[in-house]
């Protein structure tokens, strides 16, 4: 028979399975018609009706056997048997709802956690960048805040280094945002780039062209837009090249459209040449570098060339490294991702162990069943198939439950991730991760599900039937279960210790004093395009009208503006030397460093809104307007630097360079606390605040800080409405609470904390469930022994103690192993993740005690059952 014909026959038979009712009816009809034809002929031949019928039946043969063979031919008997097995499995699982629910929940939880975490890891870390030959695309990683632009003048890079010996293409970029003046006005992510940028990525425009040197030298107002921007904001038209868009109030010509997937850096929607708009990011964009290595050039070689080109040496140049761009983007997050992945793997491991344990727990009951079935003639293969069907059914139900659970988990987990995370948009329920995880669960279910069948082989039928009640799992299986329990407890303790450590870490970071309370404070950003808001007067007219409008809103306690927000300052914010009038200035070559401070411009109400405490003097007032004498407020550490107490400082004058190289002498009206401008774990910055209202400073990128009487987020719509009354073309962006600003600095660790707390709790729960199962099983197995002991006078309390002790013995062993593992894991983690404290012995001790306590409770329930054993009943049950 040709394969095609065999396949055809198989299809028929498979169809037969579904059409079995109809086939059965047809078969009966056909057989009946056959008999009738035969009877007719017999009658014609002169037989009596009875004889005719009998003869026909006789000649037809054994009807039932023929029907059976006809049925076998009409379907695939193996499928029928498999279906029967599955049906039986479902029945068995439904008859033990507690067991089934526990096993399914365990597996589903483990799979969901695993699939969600692996999906994130895959999208963020594993998937290569969407550029040709992504391994050759490199970025630079330097010390914090230092960028390549600090030592290579941009114009140099444009002119001379667009391609070098090591780099096929080399470009600079700075990420920021622009007001898109479309309908409706929107804030879009944008980047300023040099012509070499797209070449470095290997991205070629889908429509139109990218930038040329001319675009850069003439600071042309030209733009390249992303695929998303083109589709959503420009209608996806083909003739888009040459059309015009408004960015920050200025007219730009669209040169081209990038293909889908190109949105580097930070989900950029529009790229403009580096000099086209200085308001892209704060006032001074922070540039960094991207390059495409030539064939055969290694990153270290490229680094050497870069440093030579830049003629730079020195301690921080040593820290500069050329690394694959993907590493530059997510490299810092790797340790945290590793931690979370390890956690997910451990939870999956626990889930598998627990399922194994639950399946093994049923060995005893099943063994009896199997031995009886073997004695009744079931083949070993049939029993194995039966067990396989049960495990598979279990795994399938758990898998089905895991999918929605994983999607919910993933959505929740994604919401905890920092918005700027590379690959965030690409995170989706990953089929690959799901398959891997489901495969692991399946293997567990199969492997441990087979145990009863394998062990059924050991006992001979007659022996089993003789002493039915004493059939127990073999020693091997009992020991396996106990060791699995030890592993489970150990892993749970490791996860709990990890969770505790991360909670401490994050709470510590959250509580770190940054000099700013920031409670109930909402932060909004707005960019005033320099085209319309040219002078301080124009900008301030808007700012102060907005400030007053917001102040009048209900639920607002204080409102103010600043040019730089604490914990979110531009990397280029630098301290300048500022002296106190009348004090000798330290000589530059002297040992003593001159007092210096970062200079900030704030409106009245700012200190109150953001929560910076006043130490002496006063804060700014509405009446500190232009024309009045210049005023400043200084922070404590500047006060210390000039060696005066805050009180003494108030009323003195500072000396600083003003416009046109003149020195100015503003009066110090107040002293406030120091704040941390960049990171919670950095040093405090000395600061000098200028009043925005004196119009000496034009503020085009303001942070508006609003303190509410309640939840400040509720105020956002009213604030937006107030702003659009003043200028409807201005979009607010980065609207968030100050706590959010703070949290962005350790979003990775917070993510790790939340996942680890969830993982730890799940692992703990599962291990306790496992413990309960094992003890309950031991009690069940020893029912007779316990009954006899009670009958001959053992005190129930003593029996109970012994049962609990056997459970606690396993737990203690697991805790000991877990403590050692946790200490090791903590050391590894502390070396890689900033802010992770040492794992204190007390923490481990407390956790272990808690686990032991719950373990005692978990063991107590079956132990109590043991003491209720009625000796008479147990003995009669034989």
């Amino acid at each position, binding site marked *: *028979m040709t394969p095609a*014909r065999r396949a*055809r*026959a198989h299809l*028929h*038979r498979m169809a037969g399975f579904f059409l079995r009712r109809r086939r059965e009816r*047809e*078969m009966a*009809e*056909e*057989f009946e*018609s*056959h008999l*009738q*034809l*035969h009877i*007719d002929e017999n009658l014609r031949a002169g037989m009596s009706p009875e004889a005719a019928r009998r003869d026909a039946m006789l*000649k*037809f*043969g*054994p*009807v039932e056997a*023929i029907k059976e*063979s*006809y049925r*076998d*031919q*009409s379907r695939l008997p193996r499928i029928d048997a498999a279906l029967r097995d599955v049906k039986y499995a479902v029945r068995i699982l439904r008859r033990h709802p507690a067991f089934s629910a526990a096993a399914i929940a365990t597996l589903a939880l483990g799979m969901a956690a695993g699939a969600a975490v692996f999906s994130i890891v895959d999208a963020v870390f594993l998937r290569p960048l969407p550029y040709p030959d992504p391994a050759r695309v490199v970025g630079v990683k330097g010390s914090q805040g230092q960028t390549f632009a600090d030592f290579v003048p941009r114009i140099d890079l444009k002119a001379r280094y667009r391609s070098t010996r090591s780099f096929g293409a080399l470009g600079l970029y700075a990420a920021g945002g622009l007001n898109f003046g479309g309908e409706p006005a929107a804030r879009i992510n944008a980047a300023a780039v040099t012509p070499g940028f797209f070449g470095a990525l290997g991205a070629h425009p889908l429509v139109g062209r990218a930038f040329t040197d001319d675009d850069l030298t003439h600071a042309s107002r030209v733009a390249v837009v992303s695929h998303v921007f083109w589709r959503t904001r420009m209608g996806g038209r083909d003739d888009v090249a040459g059309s015009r868009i408004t960015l920050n109030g200025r007219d730009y010509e669209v040169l081209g459209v990038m293909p889908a997937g190109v949105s580097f850096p930070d989900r950029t929607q529009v790229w403009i040449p580096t000099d086209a708009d200085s308001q892209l990011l704060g006032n001074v964009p922070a540039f960094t570098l991207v390059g495409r290595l030539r064939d055969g050039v290694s990153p270290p070689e490229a680094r050497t060339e870069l440093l030579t080109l830049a003629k730079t040496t020195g301690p921080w140049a040593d820290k500069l490294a050329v690394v694959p761009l993907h590493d530059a983007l997510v490299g810092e997050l790797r340790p945290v991702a590793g931690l979370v992945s390890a956690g997910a793997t451990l939870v999956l491991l626990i889930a598998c162990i627990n399922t194994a344990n639950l399946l093994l727990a049923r060995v005893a009951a099943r063994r009896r069943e199997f031995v009886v079935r073997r004695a009744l003639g079931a083949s070993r293969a049939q029993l194995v198939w039966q067990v396989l069907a049960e495990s598979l059914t279990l795994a399938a139900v758990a898998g089905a439950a895991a999918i929605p659970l994983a999607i919910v988990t993933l959505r929740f987990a994604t919401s905890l991730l920092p918005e700027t995370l590379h690959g965030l948009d690409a995170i989706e329920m990953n089929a690959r991760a799901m398959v891997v995880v489901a495969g692991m669960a399946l293997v567990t279910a199969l492997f441990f599900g087979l145990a009863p069948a394998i062990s059924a082989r050991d006992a001979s039928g007659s022996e089993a039937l003789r002493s039915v009640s004493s059939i127990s799992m073999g020693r091997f299986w009992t020991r396996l279960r106990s060791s699995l329990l030890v592993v489970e407890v150990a892993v749970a303790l490791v996860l709990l210790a990890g969770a505790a450590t991360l909670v401490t870490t994050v709470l510590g970071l959250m509580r770190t004093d940054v000099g700013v309370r920031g409670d109930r404070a909402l932060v909004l950003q707005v960019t005033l395009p320099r085209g319309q808001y040219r002078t301080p007067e124009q900008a301030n007219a808007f700012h102060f009208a907005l400030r007053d409008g917001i102040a009048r809103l209900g639920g607002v306690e204080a409102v103010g503006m600043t040019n730089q927000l604490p914990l979110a300052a531009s990397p280029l914010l630098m301290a300048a030397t500022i002296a106190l009038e009348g004090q000798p200035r330290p000589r530059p070559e002297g040992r003593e460093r001159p007092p210096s401070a970062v200079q900030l411009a704030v409106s009245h109400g700012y200190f109150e809104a953001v929560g910076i405490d006043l130490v002496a003097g006063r804060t700014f007032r509405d009446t500190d307007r232009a024309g009045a004498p210049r005023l400043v407020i200084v922070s404590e550490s500047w006060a210390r630097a000039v060696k005066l107490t805050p009180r003494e400082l108030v009323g003195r004058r500072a000396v600083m360079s003003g416009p046109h190289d003149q020195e100015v002498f503003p009066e110090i009206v107040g002293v406030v606390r120091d704040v941390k401008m960049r990171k919670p774990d950095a040093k405090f910055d000395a600061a000098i605040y200028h009043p925005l209202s004196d119009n000496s400073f034009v503020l085009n990128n303001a942070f508006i800080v609003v303190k509410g009487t309640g939840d400040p987020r509720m105020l956002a719509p009213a604030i937006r409405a107030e702003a659009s009354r003043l200028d409807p073309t201005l979009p607010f962006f980065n609207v968030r609470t100050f706590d959010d600003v703070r949290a962005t600095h350790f979003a990775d660790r917070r993510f790790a904390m939340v996942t680890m707390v969830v993982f730890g709790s799940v692992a703990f729960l599962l291990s306790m469930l496992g413990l309960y199962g094992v003890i309950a099983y031991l009690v069940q197995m020893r029912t007779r022994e316990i009954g006899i002991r009670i009958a001959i006078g053992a005190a129930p309390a003593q029996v109970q103690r012994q049962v609990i002790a056997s459970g606690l013995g396993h737990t203690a062993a697991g805790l000991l192993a877990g403590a050692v593992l946790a200490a090791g894991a903590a050391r590894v983690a502390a070396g890689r993740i900033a802010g992770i404290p040492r794992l204190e012995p007390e923490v481990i001790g407390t956790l272990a005690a808690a686990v032991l306590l719950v373990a005692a409770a978990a063991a107590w329930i079956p132990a109590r059952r043991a003491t209720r054993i009625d000796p008479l009943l147990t003995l009669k049950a034989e």
Partner: protein
Amino acid sequence: MSEKTDVWQGTLALMVLKTLETMGPLHGYGIARRIEQTSGERLTLNYGTLYPALLKLEQEGYIAAEWGVSENNRKAKFYALTRAGRKQVARAASDWQRTTEILARFMAPEHSR
């Protein structure tokens, strides 16, 4: 083995196909009777055993079945050769020919070898 020879499955299939080729569409009872007659009543089979074989041939696409009415007005399922069935008869017949020829040589008296 008794005189009422057991019918080997493959042989039965070939007999069915050959019968249908000679007789045209026929119902199960007709095929059974015809096979018996053709064998000169030397071959008796349980008529019922024919049906699994018919089903198999149908599944393989060598024959097609259709409900119809017999000459004496009984509802019956009629089987007919398909195109693939016709080819199969030719192929199987020549295979059979070859097999019997070879076997015949073995069975022939010593000197004819």
